[in-house]
Each structure stands twice: as C-alpha cells, then as structure tokens.
C-alpha cells in the first residue's frame, strides 16, 4: 500500500441527505481508478435526523479518521462542516454546502445556528483552501435536491486535490446508479465541477 500517497477524506452531513450514497460513489470511483481504497460510515441513528459521518481513505488500511488526520473535509451542511473541522489537518481542503438544514432546536427558536460568515471565519483560520457551494440549489437545478451531494463531489473532482477526476466520477455514476437517476446526477456533477473552475 505504501506506493500510493495516502489521502484521507472526511465527509459529514445530516441523516436523510444522502451522505452515504455520495460516500459509496466516491469509493467506487477510486476503486475504478485502480487505487487501494477503504471507506467507513457511522450512522447509528441517521434516519432520525442525526449527524452522519463517513470516510474515504486512499492508500490506507484503516477505515477511520481521527482528529487532525483528514486531508479533505466534505461538509454537506455548513454547521456540520464547522462541527467536523477538528478532523481536518491545518492547511487541508474544505468543500462545503452553504445551505443549512436546521436542527429542531433551531427550528423551534430555542437555539441559533452560526451564520455562514462565522463558519467561513472558522474555516479560514484553518486553511485558505476552501469553497462553499449552494448544494441544494445546484441539486434542484439538476433535477433533484438529493443530487446536491454529487455537486459537491463534482467540485472535489474538478479541483485536482485527489486522483479522482470528473470523468471518472461520471463513469462511476453511469456504472453504479439506477438508470432513472443517472442523468440528474451527471448534471449535478457538472454543475458542481463548473463551480470550481
């Protein structure tokens, strides 16, 4: 395994958002590229609106990422990006959605979410290498909110930060997703990739 430079990608989102679908797709893409890959997921109570964390590791044996170990952080929700920042290596890369999914305590007005500015400030304190994308909007533009995650993967693929390319992702989408949803996801991938240009 030591001939491949290890890359650790930490992903976080909210239950029901499709974080795990995105994780599996990214893992399949890396596998198609012929690289050693492991991924992990923790989704104890995911279907009930909890946080879902997952990992994709290239050239590593372990499926887990500890604090300060991630080269890339993908946040499918801005507050979750902020919560997961300790996993990121200082100077690492962040791709995050800029659109919130409010937790119940915020929806009921008992607590408030940090503003996008606050999230950005915290991210800036760790790295200059970050990008925020309106994932749900891009998903809707592509044809389905859930495809928003794929837009974020599109931005990652276009960035060249990992061996994953936009073409390889497109191929994995065609090979692994149900025919019905392939076009929507390809569109989302493209929209996300464009954001990175």
């Amino acid at each position: 395994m030591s001939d491949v430079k290890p890359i650790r990608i930490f992903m976080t989102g909210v239950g029901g958002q499709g974080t795990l679908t995105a994780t599996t797709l990214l893992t399949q893409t890396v596998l198609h590229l012929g690289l050693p890959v492991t991924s992990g997921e923790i989704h104890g109570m995911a279907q009930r609106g909890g946080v879902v964390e997952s990992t994709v590791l290239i050239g590593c044996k372990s499926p887990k990422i500890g604090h300060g170990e991630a080269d890339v952080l993908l946040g499918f929700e801005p507050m979750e990006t902020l919560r997961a920042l300790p996993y990121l290596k200082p100077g690492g890369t962040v791709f995050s959605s800029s659109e919130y999914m409010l937790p119940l305590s915020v929806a009921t007005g008992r607590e408030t979410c940090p503003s996008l500015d606050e999230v950005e400030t915290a991210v800036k304190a760790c790295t200059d290498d970050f990008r925020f994308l309106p994932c749900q909007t891009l998903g809707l533009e592509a044809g389905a909110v859930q495809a928003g995650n794929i837009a974020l993967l599109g931005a990652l693929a276009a960035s060249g930060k990992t061996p994953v390319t936009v073409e390889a992702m497109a191929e994995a989408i065609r090979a692994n997703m149900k025919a019905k949803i392939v076009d929507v996801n390809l569109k989302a991938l493209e929209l996300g990739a464009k954001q990175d240009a």
Partner: protein
Amino acid sequence: MPHPLLADNPGETHLLLGNEAIVRGAVEAGIQVVTCYPGTPSSEAPDTFFRLSPEGKYYFEYSVNEKVALEVGGGATLAGALTLTTMKHVGVNVAADPLMTLCYTGAPGGFVLLSADDPGCHSSQNEQDNRIYARLGGMPVFEPSTAQEAKDMTRDALAMSKKHEAPVMLRTTTRVNHLRGPVEFGNAPDPGKAKGFTKNPSRFVPIPAFSRRMHLELLDRLDALREEAEKSPYNTVSGAGEIGIAASGISRAYLCDALENAGLKGKVKVFDLGMSYPLPETMALDFMKGLKKLLVVEELEPVLENELRVLAQKNSLDIEIFGKNLLPQNGEFTVTMVENAVREVAGEQAVTVDCCEGRDNLPMRPPNLCAGCPHRGAFFATREVFGDDAIYSSDIGCYTLGLLPPLSCADFLLCMGSSVSAGGGAALAAGQTVVAFIGDSTFFHSGLSGLANAVFNQHDLLLVILDNYTTAMTGHQPNPGVHHTVLGENPSRVDIAKSCEGVGVEVIRKVNPLNRKKTVAALEELKDMKGVRVLIAEEPCPLYARRITRQSKPQVAYVTENCSGRYECLEKLACPAIYKDGDKAAVNELLCSGCMLCLQICPNIKAKKRG
C-alpha cells in the same frame, strides 16, 4: 442472472460493506442455514441474506430473539447443517445459555456465531467485549480488519468449525461491519443437503455424567484448534528488532497506518493476530523471544495482553509489556492514538496532532422521532392522561426516544423486554402507577414471558404495546406480528392481541395512537382499573409504509393565517416537520407525513392535498 453475492464468479472484485462480505464468505463456504435477531451493527448481514433468500440456496430466518436464533441454529448444526447465526454483542447475553452448552455438545454440521461488538457505543447501551464470552465457552475467535478478511474469515471460520465440529466466533466491531472495501471473490459451490441427524445421546444430551466428559472433549478440541491457530494464514509475524507489537481486530489496520506514519514499518516486530483464540503459544513465544518491550494493541478489554503476560510469566521471559497502561480500555482507537503508543514504547517523541478548531456548543442534532411517527401520538396522549404522576417503564426501540422532552415518557430501562417485568417490579415496590411501553418486535423478543409473569403474579401494570408493524429502529426487519415484509405478505402472522389473551390478560384495548381523543379515552378508562391491562396502539411506521408497502398519506398539514404564535404545536409535539417562521409556526411539506396529529392540537392547523 443470479445476484453477484450468490453467483459462482471467482476472480471478480466487488466493493462490499463488511456485512455484505460476511454474506459472501458464508455463501463461499456453502452455508445451509442462517438465523439471526437484528441489531446494529450486525443487521445488514441478515438483511442481505433475507433479501437474497428467494434465490439463495440456504434457509434463512429472522428468529424472535437471540436465544431462539441460537437454538434454531444449534439444532440445525446438530442435524448436520452448516450454520451461521448473527446478532449484536448484547444479543449474545440473551443467547448465552444455549451457547455455553453448544460449546460442549459441539457442532457436527459446523456453526459460526457472528458477534458484532460496538466499541464507542455508537448504537448500543454498552461496549462489552465478547471475546470474553469466547473464552468462557471455549470457542475459537476470528477477528477481521478489512472487507476482504471479513469475507475470507467467514468462509474459513465455517470450514474450521465443520472440520472440528466446534462452534466458532466471528467477532467484528462497528468499524468492520460498516467499512467498505474491495473484495475478491472465490468459488461459490452448491451447498447441497445437510448431513442429517445421527443419534448419539451421550454426546448430545448434557446430563451431568455426560457433561463431565464433554468438558474434557472440549478441552481437547481447543488444543487441536490451537494447532490450527499456529498455522493460520491470519496469524503472522513480520519486521524485526527488540520492540514487538501484537494486535488483533481492527487495531491491526490502525497499527499498519500508524507504523507507516511513524516511519517504523519493518523496524519493529509485529504479531498480527487474525485468528486470536486459542492463542498460538509456540508462535507467540517465538515472537516474544529476544524482545525487550512488547506493546499489545487491542480495543476494549486487555484480553490478549493478559494472555501474553501469562505466557511471558510461565516462560520466565524478561520482557516489559505495555497495553492498557498506554491505550484506553474504553471506546475506539485512532491511528494517531496507536502511533503515539508505539512511539512511547520505541522511546520516540509523541506526535502532537495539530487540528483545526471547530466550535463548542453548536446546536446538537439529537435523534428525534420522525415526523408522523405514531409513537409521538401514544406518548402525547399518555402525558395528557398521566403527566408526571406515573412511572414510565421504557424499552428498546425507536420509542426509547420518547425519553426526550416534551414527551418525556421514559423513566428507566434495562434491556429488551424489561419494560414489562421491571415495570411490574417497580409498581409493587413504589406503590405508584406504572405505564410500560414496548414495541411489537420487542414484545415478541422477550415481552411475552414478562407478561405471563405479570398475569401469574398479579402485577399492577398498564402496558402500552406500540405496534408499528415493523422493527423500525434496526432497519425495518420483519417480526412475527408484521403484515408485510420486503418479500410480500407475511403468511403466518402471530396476532398480538390474541397472544396477550392467550397468556391470560383480561383487559385489552386497541386504538390508533394518531387519534388523540380515542387514545386519551382508552387511557382514561385503563387508568381507573387495577391489574394487568394492555393497550395496543396500532399504526404503521410511516417510513416502513413508504418503503415496504409503498403507501403514504395523501394529505399534508399547513398553518393558517390565524396562527397566534403560541407555538403549542412545537412545544408539545416536537415534530421535526414544524418550525418557527417569523412570528408564526409553519410546516415543512417535504417532511410532513400527513399524520394529522397537530390538527388535533391546534385549530389553526389544517389539512390539504399533498403537492
């Protein structure tokens, strides 16, 4: 074309979840019988077996609980079938009685128990280390660390079990069950028919006179299995030097990456234990000879550490052994944690990981009952009738989330099924009304025997059975009471009301918990009675309805202009579909399942057609 997991397609590589890899390994071994009770993190293994069962060449069942699953599996292996029984770690507590004796009788057809442990309590009430059960019973243990190993070890554990007629434990942890990695397939032979039963009472009936001999035979089997561990391809020694590291389970993966990070690969001696029990002592001694220091890397209990310490002591080895003094005995490890333990033993400076600063005190996302969950209706009505005057005896399932305010309907809980029996105990000691809640799956798991006990001992208990037609918490598996499964109608449904009647309950009522008035009325009536009373709150889980029976309600709720901004809906129901929008409440139509409970609480909420 058969499903890739079942096909004879050697050489193909597929990306699999650890639990799917276990299924494939069993298929490659020629599995004949699979039994289980679901539980995170084990569930995707039995759920995959179930989904594929129409085309699989094995028998599969969801048993009612782990003890029954192990007994059905035990009977099958006694009758010569190659058998796999799966459960989460605490399930083994339930199954421990038959398990200990199956270790005595042996398993003629071969038998593997999948014990899915959960260090870090990601989805469990404790983080017990079931490798200790394996020692208690005398079963060999395989501990995979990758998807490929999960597949290969399942296959090889089954083969070894069959060869030695010894039950074997496949012990995983959450990270292994829920990792995904490439798996190269081997052959998937036709399993054929089970050998059948050969009568031999002195071997299979553990009366004391026979048991004494069975125990000796078990010890002999363990000696033979120790020889297997000595030559197992999963046990290897690599590297060189005076510092040794022994690791088992997922810790082997952490160790591999930690050595890479520390630049110590090849510079220390590593003892990888994939088949970790019985300890291959000759191999371990060879490994330890010439070492000055030894670090043992294993999550949870110091099981290997203690065995290696004993071995060192017996052989008067002058070696300093580290383990739980450097690494925690609770929770999960990380690569960095392992790296620093290695560095400490190697006399190198610890790495300090710089990590980015997040922010404390962010709003949390505690799990909550879904929008439209019928449990919410049952709890809401219960609070309306009993408030804080009753003691709420809870149980394990989605409805445990009724613990959270504003519903606050859980005061204590021990384990699955305890709501009924511990509820009865609390009532007799406290002299207070006890309302117990139990789900349909948990009722069949271990509520029924408690209920018979309550009737027999004249407990004073109001039991609310939350029948949502499914085992929701663990992924919507079938249970005896369900009407439908992913494969179609349940042809042999066991009726909950009749079961209660059968064990002697005289007062049984049934309501739809989403009907506030009727539920309150039923609870009021039962409140005034004494003895064992049962209320069956019957309404399908909306997620189950959508996924399994493809039904959803045609209407959604909306808030009218007249909303007074008192937010009673929000404060009393905590429904995730309702939120504050300016100075009024609003309903998120995408989340609303159309249960219409909120309409019964506020006149300013109305129904409209979805879409």
